[in-house]
């Protein structure tokens, strides 16, 4: 019997719908509409987590993901890794798994999920490229409609949102569908495996912090960051020690 969130299979189906809807909307918001940053991992993961019943669990995933992909920017035609797709799918998979195991999203579960889904960031970038290539067809349609004297030729613009929505919605729904397997893996971890996975999550955090320093493209950044890090560690240790 696979571990499911309280409410069983019907509830899992509801979670799939929620993840598909929010994941799909985030794919649109990321580039095609508004760009008020609702699709950044630090917003999307806690938001989707909240909608599925564990906002805190979403935040556990969202912050390191945000830091890892902080430096990725869409400059002209060059595309960054798709951090939103990864954040959406990871939250969709790990939050229900945490509900099923009743552990919430802890280090081991997060590390397990990230190891499984990390390639989605690169895959999402390919998907973005493909959907942009496909938008050329929309352009051709608009051009021929305008040539025929159709004044509303440019309205095809919004149809460019359909493919990103659909692809991200499907992938996030699959994430929920895979969650019982991840929950099962987490429940079968012994003490040693849990400690090892916990360690993995700490080192992922370390890489995320390093990426965050790299994201500030300024020659003074490494020195400033180092000074600030040492100061914060020193002050904390002076006040409370390692206890």
């Amino acid at each position, binding site marked *: 019997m696979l571990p499911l969130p309280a409410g069983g299979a019907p509830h899992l189906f509801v979670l799939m719908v929620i993840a598909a809807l929010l994941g799909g909307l985030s794919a649109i918001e990321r580039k*095609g*509409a508004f*760009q*008020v*940053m609702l699709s950044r991992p*630090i*917003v999307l993961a806690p938001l989707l987590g909240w909608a599925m019943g564990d906002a805190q669990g979403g*935040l556990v995933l969202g*912050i390191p993901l945000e*830091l890892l992909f902080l430096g990725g*920017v869409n*400059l002209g035609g060059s595309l960054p890794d798709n951090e939103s797709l990864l954040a959406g799918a990871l939250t969709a998979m790990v939050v229900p798994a945490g509900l099923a195991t009743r552990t919430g999203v802890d280090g081991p579960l997060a*590390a397990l999920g990230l*190891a499984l889904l*990390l390639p989605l960031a690169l895959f999402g970038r390919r998907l973005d490229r493909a959907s*942009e290539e496909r938008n050329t067809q*929309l*352009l051709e349609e*608009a051009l021929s409609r*305008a040539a025929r*004297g159709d*004044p*509303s*030729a*440019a*309205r095809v*613009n*919004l149809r*460019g949102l359909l493919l990103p929505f659909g692809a991200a919605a499907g992938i996030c729904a699959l994430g929920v569908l895979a969650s019982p397997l991840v929950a099962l893996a987490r429940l079968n971890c012994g003490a*040693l495996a*849990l*400690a090892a996975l916990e*360690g*993995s*999550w*700490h*080192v*992922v*955090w*370390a*890489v995320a*912090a*390093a*990426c*965050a*320093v790299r*994201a*500030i*493209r*300024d020659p*003074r950044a*490494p020195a*400033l*960051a180092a000074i*600030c*890090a040492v100061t*914060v*560690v020193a002050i904390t240790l002076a006040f409370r020690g*390692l*206890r």
Partner: protein
Amino acid sequence: MGALGRVFLRSMFLQAAWNPRGMQNLGFADAISPALAELYPDPVERAKAVARHLEFFNCHPYLAAAILGGAVRLEERVANGEAPPQIVSSFKSALGPPFAALGDGFFWLALRPVAALAAAATQPFLGMGCVLVFLVLYNAVHLPVRLWLFATGYLRAEGVVDAVARAHMASGTPFLKACGAALAGAVAARGILHAGIPGRPFAALLVASMIVLAWATVPRLGATRAVYIALGVGLVVGARFL
């Protein structure tokens, strides 16, 4: 809502059908359509105007609002027969690249990372509230600037270049980046302390050295490989954590 309001609203979908050939052209033509509908009552003339706006266009999605506003003003002149249609095209192609560079440097490379780092650094104290820190810091700048750019573009047309230059957007960037670097340091400290407390100095040292190592190697490895290596290293040494 007036035509200008609809143009601004549609400018939010500038990149909905971003394509390699014309980049933001479809979004631009769609956004300016409500204004063209008022200026060119004859559908054939209007379709011609829309077709003109299907030419190549690319800019930063926020800064493009200024060009869109200016283009509406210039289209008014064209419709009144005061200027030839080419004036709109030259305006768009002249302002696109410099405004793109300005927007990329300020919004993508400074404001967004700094707002996100402020949220990550305050998360231990604010919990879920840190999400609001990010959204409010970012959009309290983004949305008013976008609206101001659109309004100034429409009111001043070519004069928008002066107005944007006098706003000194780029001059805040070095200060923002310094804040970002300090916040990134605080976030790194948090990762170190989280691993080290309670009573695991070995783990804290390990995380600290991993941060330095990752900082040195991430540009060559790329994020994906770096994270997989991190997961592996963590697994090996993690068994000693408890």
